[in-house]
């Protein structure tokens, strides 16, 4: 029931602007349910987003919210967290936002292992601008700027996150939304840079061009192709869901606090 979670929304801003059947709303619900489960102080939560359909999410959530510039959400969030580490900082980005223009901030936030909980809404496309290919568009799929099928390979976002130094990575889908809620909770609880890839449907800018008749068809595709981690082999269009990696490393803001204390103790 919406009323159970309505306190976390700016209800006056609803209904939202997303298209019929767009998965972003479902991901938003999963995020809010995670925050409710975690019983976090609403005043202490910051949600930062970039620009894109996904990033419009911040306008609907009743926290301290920042709808920043395309690709830069993590850099804004880094400033927020570094300046005031006691805040709980969530970052919501689209796949283009995070992996195309924002790729550099992504690897460096991961390298610093700064304590941010990051949700990348992967709808395999630039939704907001009407369906151009993104770095996460699968090979051969169609987009307005890949009219003959995408020549490029999709970026393995979680693999890059891990190589760059992130300490938690997971994947779920709009369809697997209870898993999504769970991995967001785990991501929050990991004291470091934690990434959740939320596979979502964009029926309007991606589905139509790639033979999905209805939003429900896209959710069915998620259901069938999202394979719980553990299974040995995965097929062509299949992808793993669940926790993908976890690692140990020093967290940036805690290290910085140690430095402050060391220096204030007179040491250099």
């Amino acid at each position, binding site marked *: 029931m919406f009323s159970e979670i309505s306190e976390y929304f700016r209800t006056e801003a609803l*209904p939202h602007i997303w298209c019929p059947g767009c998965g*972003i709303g479902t991901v938003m619900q999963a995020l809010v349910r995670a925050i409710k489960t975690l019983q976090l102080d609403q005043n202490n939560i910051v949600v930062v987003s970039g620009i894109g359909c996904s990033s419009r999410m911040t306008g609907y959530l009743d926290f301290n919210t920042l709808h920043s510039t395309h690709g830069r959400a993590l850099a804004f969030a880094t400033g927020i967290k570094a300046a005031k580490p006691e805040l709980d900082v969530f970052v919501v980005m689209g796949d283009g936002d995070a992996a195309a223009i924002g790729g550099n901030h992504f690897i460096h936030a991961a390298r610093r292992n700064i304590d941010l909980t990051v949700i990348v809404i992967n709808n395999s496309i630039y939704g907001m601008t009407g369906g151009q290919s993104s770095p996460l568009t699968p090979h051969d799929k169609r987009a307005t700027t890949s009219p003959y099928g995408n020549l490029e390979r999709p970026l393995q976002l979680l693999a890059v996150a891990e190589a760059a130094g992130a300490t938690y990575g997971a994947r779920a889908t709009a369809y697997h*939304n209870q898993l999504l809620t769970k991995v967001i909770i785990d991501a929050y609880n990991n004291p470091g840079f934690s990434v959740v890839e939320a596979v979502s449907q964009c029926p309007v800018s991606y589905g139509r061009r790639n033979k999905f008749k209805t939003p429900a068809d896209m959710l069915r595709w998620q259901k069938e192709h999202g394979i719980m981690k553990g299974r040995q082999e995965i097929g062509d269009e299949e992808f793993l869901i669940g926790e993908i990696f976890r690692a140990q490393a020093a967290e940036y803001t805690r290290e910085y606090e140690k430095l402050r204390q060391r220096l204030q103790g007179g040491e250099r």
Partner: protein
Amino acid sequence: MVRVTENTQVIVNHDWCKKCGICLAFCPKRVLESDELGRVVVAKPEECIACRICERLCPDFAINIEVSKDE
């Protein structure tokens, strides 16, 4: 055994519903149907098992399952 289904209400917020058809497609009990203009109709409320699949998959917070406490 308590049959919760009896006290379940399926409420559609038509102001928010965008007629995407997701709830219809995934309701395991086919509680929901659409009318000729695509609007969601709670066709078989009595069949609802309060699984909340519709609620969780609805991108628009437009479908609500209310289970009354007094079973």
